[in-house]
């Protein structure tokens, strides 16, 4: 039943989009279709010159057409198409009569040159224009020190930014086109000889298996190729830093770039990698390790603090430290709501603030933050709607959730707080424990491109711990992470890495 329905749908889509049509179009039919658009031009310069030129005005670089193409066509009017292709100073000229190829390339900005209208074979001269924005500073993964380049929406520029950092022929770039309508170019990057080809093949197969009509960003791909699409945890890292991509490629990971997306995907990844900011590598290892642990503590605090507040106040009054008891009773007295309602109201208002701040231009967003944080917060306490203790806890928890360097993960962290809250309301600390068990069990089963998600911790890989919860100095990082099963696990000679060839010695 389902099979039939799917079949029907496919038929309909085939009829709608000519691109999928198995029934071959003739060249004339193609031209007919293209002419339906206003921006398609097809002309013959003059009767003296036999060549007919056709292209989408909006897709080609007019300068190239005017300066490099038309002069040649007019001056070499006596040549055949084959000879012409050798004359024109543009590379990758294709000489074909296959209508499908012609259609694909004219739609991506090639110019069709026919020797005479009506003849089937033609030249395809790539003349695509690429409007691109300036390379800018990374915004979601900003770092104080270190490079300040971020990916932009143009694939070539993005590949350039990676290749610039890894100028080796082993950096392979494989392209796959996905999306029935968008025909998005998706590129897989890896370093041959370091990467485990199993990872590359998994990724390649998953990307080429994508069934969707439009792919507009790498986050589409991220969700579609995740091992478990129903999990709230992101299973690939989404980064806008080319330096981070270069670094993980050299660890033996695989990166995916999507045309039109200013962020790359890298994988296979582990949970702890989501809490390592790339800036960690720019700071000395002690500082980086401490910051990383602060971030991990921040996550735990952010997820557990409000649920624990609710659990303790609702069920376990015995657990409150004696010195805090007076303060808590005092701050709770006169509040009309039970702790859970109070907590949910505050959590939701924080989420509201965040959402409002994110949807507004940055200057207004700051005002929203101040208005929400200070005005509403103090007013709520003074009005006796919430206790000031909870206000502090919720604000700190929200702050802690923003320390996570990967945006997708910080969203997840804010989300999984709510099931914890509900469990805490029903079963107190027992509920928090049960919910933790569920989440932990879920994470244990998660994989990223088939590799365990909790990896250096479970299964325990002691050598990988050097760059997990903390970061050891660079001379201790002589081995690539075992997690990726790299083809070449050795980064550098550890003996020589530890040597110090000072002049005194």
């Amino acid at each position, binding site marked *: 039943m389902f099979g039939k329905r799917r079949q029907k749908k496919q038929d309909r889509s085939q009829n709608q989009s000519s691109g999928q049509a198995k029934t071959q179009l003739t060249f004339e039919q193609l031209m007919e279709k293209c002419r339906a658009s206003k921006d398609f031009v097809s002309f013959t310069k003059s009767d003296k010159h036999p060549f007919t030129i056709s292209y989408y005005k909006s897709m080609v670089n007019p300068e190239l057409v005017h300066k490099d193409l038309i002069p040649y066509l007019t001056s070499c009017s006596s040549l055949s198409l084959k000879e012409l292709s050798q004359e024109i100073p543009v590379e990758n000229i294709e000489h074909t009569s296959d209508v499908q190829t012609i259609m694909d390339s004219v739609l991506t900005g090639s110019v069709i040159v026919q020797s005479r209208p009506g003849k089937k074979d033609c030249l395809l001269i790539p003349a695509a224009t690429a409007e691109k924005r300036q390379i800018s500073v990374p915004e979601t993964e900003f770092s104080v020190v270190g490079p300040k380049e971020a990916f932009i929406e143009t694939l070539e520029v993005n590949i350039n930014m990676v290749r610039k950092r890894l100028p080796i022929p082993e950096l392979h770039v494989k392209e796959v086109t996905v999306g029935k309508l968008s025909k998005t170019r998706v590129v897989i990057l890896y370093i041959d000889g370091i990467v485990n080809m199993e990872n590359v093949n998994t990724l390649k197969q998953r990307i080429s298996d994508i069934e969707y009509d439009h792919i507009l960003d790498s986050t589409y791909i991220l969700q579609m190729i995740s091992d478990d699409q129903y999990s709230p945890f992101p299973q690939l890292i989404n980064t806008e830093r080319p330096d981070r991509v270069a670094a993980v490629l050299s660890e033996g990971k695989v990166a995916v770039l999507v045309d039109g997306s200013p962020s790359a995907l890298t994988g296979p990844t582990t949970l702890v990698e989501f809490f390592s900011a790339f800036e960690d590598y720019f700071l000395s290892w002690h500082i980086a390790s401490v910051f990383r642990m602060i971030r991990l503590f921040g996550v735990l605090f952010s997820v557990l603090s409000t649920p624990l507040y609710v659990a303790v*106040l*609702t*069920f376990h*009054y*015995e657990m*409150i430290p*004696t010195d805090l*008891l*007076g303060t*808590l*009773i*005092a*701050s*709770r*007295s*006169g*509040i009309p709501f*039970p*702790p859970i309602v109070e907590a949910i109201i505050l959590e939701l208002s924080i989420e509201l603030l965040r959402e409002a701040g994110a949807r507004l231009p940055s200057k207004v967003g700051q005002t929203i933050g101040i208005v929400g944080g200070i005005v509403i917060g103090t007013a709520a*306490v*003074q009005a*006796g709607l919430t*206790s*000031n203790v909870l206000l502090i806890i919720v604000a700190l928890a929200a702050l802690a959730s923003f320390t996570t360097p990967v945006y997708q993960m910080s969203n997840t962290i804010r989300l999984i707080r709510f099931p914890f809250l509900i469990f805490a309301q*029903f*079963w*107190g600390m*027992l509920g928090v424990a049960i919910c933790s068990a569920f989440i932990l069990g879920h994470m244990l089963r998660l994989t990223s491109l088939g590799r365990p998600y909790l990896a250096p911790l479970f299964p325990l890989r002691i050598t990988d711990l050097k760059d997990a919860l903390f970061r050891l100095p660079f001379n201790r990082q002589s081995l690539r992470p075992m997690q990726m099963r790299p083809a070449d696990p050795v980064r550098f000679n550890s003996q020589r890495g530890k040597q110090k060839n000072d002049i005194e010695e």
Partner: protein
Amino acid sequence: MPKSNLMTAAILLFLAGCTPQKQVLEDIQLIGVVGYDYVDGNKIQATVSVPTTEGGSDQAVLSSTTYSARSHTSKNIRQVLQAESPKPFASGRVSVIIFNEELASRGITKIIDSLQRDPSVGRNIYLAVAKGSTKDMLSKDYPVGEIVPAYLKQMIEQNMKLTFPRANFHHFNYSYYGKGSDSFMPLLDTKHGHIRIVGVALFDHSKYVDHISFEDSFIFKLMYQSFRQGSHEFKLGKDNYLTLENLSSHVNYDIYNANTNPKINITIHVRGKVNDAAGTPLYQGKTIEMIEKTIKKQTEHDAEKMVDRFQKKGIDPLGLGDRARSSARRFNFKEWNQKYPNIPVHVKANIEVTQGGIVE
């Protein structure tokens, strides 16, 4: 998957009622201190002190109030108390339990039994005996900047760090239910508008029989446990007193022939610092020796006198019987109890004065 779904469904269906009971912090009355008074015959009166707040959440003031009721059993008193309280009582935060002197001397078995059955009552709470009515003690206001429950708890707690031997509910239970030892607890009294510890109340099993003064509690503690801190005043000569601050003390029991002809040697090592010795020239080597000797003599004398007093009363707060049991095989408590009053106990004190302050 279907199996686990079935399990989940079964759990939800059959265990839906198995959830912990909600006790929201502000909807209950947290009992801080309970005081038990003797009324007559079987009847006892219980007074509970609970913290309360006034004012809104922003500028709430914490104070304490008391409720009291009379009944035959301590749990029934709870019911009677409930009748006059705005919120239900919860006993999970009880920090001090006080018995009135008269009640204690008639035995506290019933109350102890019900307390130690109650899982919500902690084991690190303090028990105490009060001179006079506990109701009066708890319902007064004390200008100490703390509400009564916190005041009592902190007062006992900090004294147990200093000169008072440690004695919480756990220790009480150990010596109460264990053989070869008797329990003790602080003896409280209200004086000059404050509550103070006036001594160590000594129990013969469940009955309060005797007490030693607060001044002597240091000597008792020296024999009872090894500890740091605390200070004691010794008489050096005529009209000449000095204070020894304990830096670290260590006690050792040597029990010989526990089963046949017992003999006990208690050795106390004290390293201390002379704190307050106006008029005594500490810089002379001999003076220090003299001080050490005097303190040693006094300590040994006081300690032996104290043990002798315990033996005469037939009580064993030092747990000598328990210590003897641990040093002998097939220990016979019956014989021990018969011999106990006449066992020779020698106390040997080694006093070491390590410093006398910063002025040489």
